[in-house]
């Protein structure tokens, strides 16, 4: 496991704002055979103390991701802004499925709008961007405590740990 397992990290305000903005959210897990799975998410929220992150996913697309998480709690999520390529990855080992709130549905709606706008900035058609993201009528929330955070913007610094 990551060396920082069990140690609760804290995101700085800038990164917290970044991952709750116009970013692609991609969630991955692995099963007992160490076979990974992956699903594109629909937004996220960061706890007030910035130590926990909740990602929203559309249930119908999750494959084995939710089962994997329910079984072992391991999660890796990459957040990337399409127009800037700015990217970070967060990991956790206590992920669990949590209740979707009314606020979460609002977050997903705002994420859809912001993400589509960001893709339009780099030349994608709005209807294409909306189609990729989908309306996500059946949201599931997955919450985890930050165990590790990495910079992943393309370039030689990719893979470095975020300074805490």
């Amino acid at each position, binding site marked *: 496991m990551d060396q920082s397992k069990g140690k609760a990290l804290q995101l700085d305000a800038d990164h917290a704002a970044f991952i709750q903005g116009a970013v692609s959210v991609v969630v991955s897990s692995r099963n007992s055979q160490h076979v*990974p799975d992956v699903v594109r998410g629909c937004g996220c929220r960061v706890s007030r103390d910035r130590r926990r992150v909740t990602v929203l996913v559309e249930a*119908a697309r999750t494959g084995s991701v939710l089962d994997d998480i329910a079984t072992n709690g391991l999660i*890796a999520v990459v957040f990337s802004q399409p127009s800037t*390529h700015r990217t970070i*990855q967060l990991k956790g080992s206590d992920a669990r499925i949590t209740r979707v709130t009314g606020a979460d549905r609002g977050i997903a709606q705002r994420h859809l709008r912001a993400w589509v706008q960001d893709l339009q900035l780099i030349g994608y058609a709005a209807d294409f961007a909306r189609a*990729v993201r989908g309306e996500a009528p059946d949201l599931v929330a997955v919450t985890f405590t930050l165990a590790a955070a990495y910079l992943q913007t*393309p370039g030689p610094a990719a*893979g470095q740990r975020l300074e805490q």
Partner: protein
Amino acid sequence: MTQPITLHSIRACLEGAVPAVVATCAGDGTPNVSYISEVHYVDPGHVALSYQFFSKTRQNVLENPRATVLVIHPDTGAQYKLAAGYLRTEDSGPLFECMKAKLAGIASHAGMTGVFRLRGADVYRVDSVTQVYRTSLTPAAASASSLAQVRCCIERLSATSDLASLLDTLLESLRDVLGIRHSMVLMREPTGQALYTVASRGYTASGVGAEIRPGEGVIGAAALSRTPIRIAHATSEFGYGRAMRDDATRLGITAGIESAIPLPGLPESQSQIAVPILAGERLLGVLFAESIETGRFGYDEEDALVVVARHAGSAVAMLEEGEAIDSDRPVARSAAPAPRGAPIRVRRYVENDSIFVGDEYMIKGVAGAILWKLLRDFVNEGRTEFSNRELRLDPAIRLPDLSENLEARLILLQRRLEERCPSLRIEKTGRGQFRLHVNRPLTLAEIGRHQ
């Protein structure tokens, strides 16, 4: 929502138009997810992922080969999941070269030129493909390159009986059948030092005689790696236009006079494809096409051009064999009436066989040596009828390989004269035979190295 789909049927997702993601798992069980610039279709059972930096993904697959790749259809936005197993990394060879060029285009599109650099092609076996999400958008119209159209191109090629018409038919069938309007054929110098343009379509100037070196741009890369190379977005890294200009600056001054012929090209070119023309394993040349549309040439167009170029390569080889036999026939030698008018001065620079008619650069190299022999025989003996055979046997011409490429050089010479020199013309009179037409008196001057 999940149904089995073949890798082949989702090739459009593997063009790099929309970034893909790959999930992996470390040996200790920690999952990882990362963006991947290029997921490339290798064959119905394999893909290759671009290896650009030593990343966690790469470290993970070396420990645990299982990976899951999520790709997005560029027209519909539908998502597909590939269950894959890492096999090996290739850091040279056709797959590497092909991905390197494509990545340069992707990088250019993403504003990442100089950041995205291919270190290796990570080859994965694909165990299953599933659709995870469907959208209401419909894919773009089916590709223009159907099997029926490829067949039509090949039938047109089969109806040709000499190299010049074969090359013209090749480019015209691309235009008429496949809708590819800007294209050219470059033949390989038997020495392997250069490729020279012998035919083109769709450009203001034909560029016949323009040269490119192996390794330069998409054309040079295709020649060197003997594999199709294509890019979907303009990139300075593979911009053959720039390489040519640099070359012209560096090499073009011969005896103080500009002697480089500019390669034709679309200034606004976005999509480019170069396909080797092979006869068996022998590289004869490169078929090149380009478009101002982005993403004009996909996997289907590549398949079509590869099949057509393969067929053309075999046809060229058959014509070469036929020509070698036919040109053994003796040539009737007749004296032509002496031309009238003011004489034209023709100069040959011995150093590289470059020929100038008046002040205009005409041709150099082997084609230059051929022209000089013809003009010399015309001036000294009044000869106008010639055979390929005697050119092959003439020690002054120094054909690098007697069996190769003479016909292509004659086409080059013939077309160059047609475009640039109204006083001289070469006319084919039969297989392996041709006639020189001269309509002005000539004075010949050789300029040696030390003058």
